């Protein structure tokens, strides 16, 4: 517990003589607590202030500033547009990585980022949702770094294509719309191959069912991948 952390938010009576410690305690501006537990215990008890809307608190454990809304403690200040939901490090020589607990009712839309690591050989990266193996529809374009020719790609059926792996790095960026809602899941991806004769791609499409997904899997089209991080971000709904 830091030097400014307190365990109570006292209330005083008329004519009460305050000690130096008590004055110090009310002289800290926003009260500082070690944890949310000590914060919650500091209000509403005998000789303590009643918790009410507009009360601020700083939590040492999470370095976070919070404000009481009248019914709950919420993060104070500007709400970020993207919130990190999960970060998954890729293991050694795996053909696929399933990330569970990625989607929930907390957010409608998600950004998935895959960077770092290496592939055992040049490969494509594909994405599936839950255990679904059909209904993936997408189209888009890809261009080789050594050519100005724009090529088309379409199809899928059994997966979305999302990016590339090489012996230099893995790379994909995917936006999924409504994966946890009871409606079709929309899909957009961009990938940057990191081999000198590689490709860039930009694909869009949708998964044609109304399944509510919580997990997804990223896999190589050949070979395997080692290292790198898959990060899942939720877009704030409001």
């Amino acid at each position, binding site marked *: 517990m830091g030097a400014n952390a307190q365990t109570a938010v006292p209330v005083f009576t008329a004519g009460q003589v305050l000690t130096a410690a008590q004055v110090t305690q009310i002289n800290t501006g926003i009260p500082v607590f070690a944890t949310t537990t000590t914060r919650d215990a500091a209000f509403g008890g005998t000789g303590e202030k009643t918790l009410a809307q507009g009360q601020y608190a700083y939590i040492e454990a999470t370095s976070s500033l919070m404000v009481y809304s009248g019914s709950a403690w919420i993060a104070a200040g500007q709400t970020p547009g993207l919130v990190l939901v999960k970060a*998954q490090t890729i293991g050694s020589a795996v053909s696929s990585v399933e990330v569970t607990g990625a989607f929930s009712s907390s957010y409608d839309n998600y950004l998935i980022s895959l960077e770092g690591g290496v592939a055992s050989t040049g490969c494509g990266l594909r994405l599936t949702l839950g255990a679904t193996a059909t209904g993936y529809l997408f189209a888009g374009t890809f261009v080789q770094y050594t050519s100005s*020719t724009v090529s088309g790609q379409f199809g899928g059926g059994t997966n979305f294509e999302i990016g590339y792996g090489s012996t230099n790095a893995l790379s994909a960026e995917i936006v999924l719309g409504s994966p946890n809602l009871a409606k079709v899941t929309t899909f957009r991806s961009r990938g940057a191959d990191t081999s000198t004769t590689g490709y860039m791609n930009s694909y869009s499409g949708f998964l044609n069912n109304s399944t509510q997904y919580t997990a997804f899997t990223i896999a190589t089209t050949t070979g395997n991948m080692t290292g790198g991080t898959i990060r899942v971000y939720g877009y704030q709904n409001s």
Partner: protein
Amino acid sequence: MTYKIQIDDLIRDATDEEAAAIKTKEAEAAQRAQADADKAAARQTVLAKLGLTASEAQALLG
């Protein structure tokens, strides 16, 4: 060949069924890559017959 599957932080060998599915996917990807290569080769053949470079052909179509 042994394939490894990762689920969150757990890494295990693929089951026979999973390995077969991975092989099928690999074959599909190889087939698609070959089709793309064949298409690019065919395009190049046509350009050669016309005596155009790729950028000249693109300018013509654009």
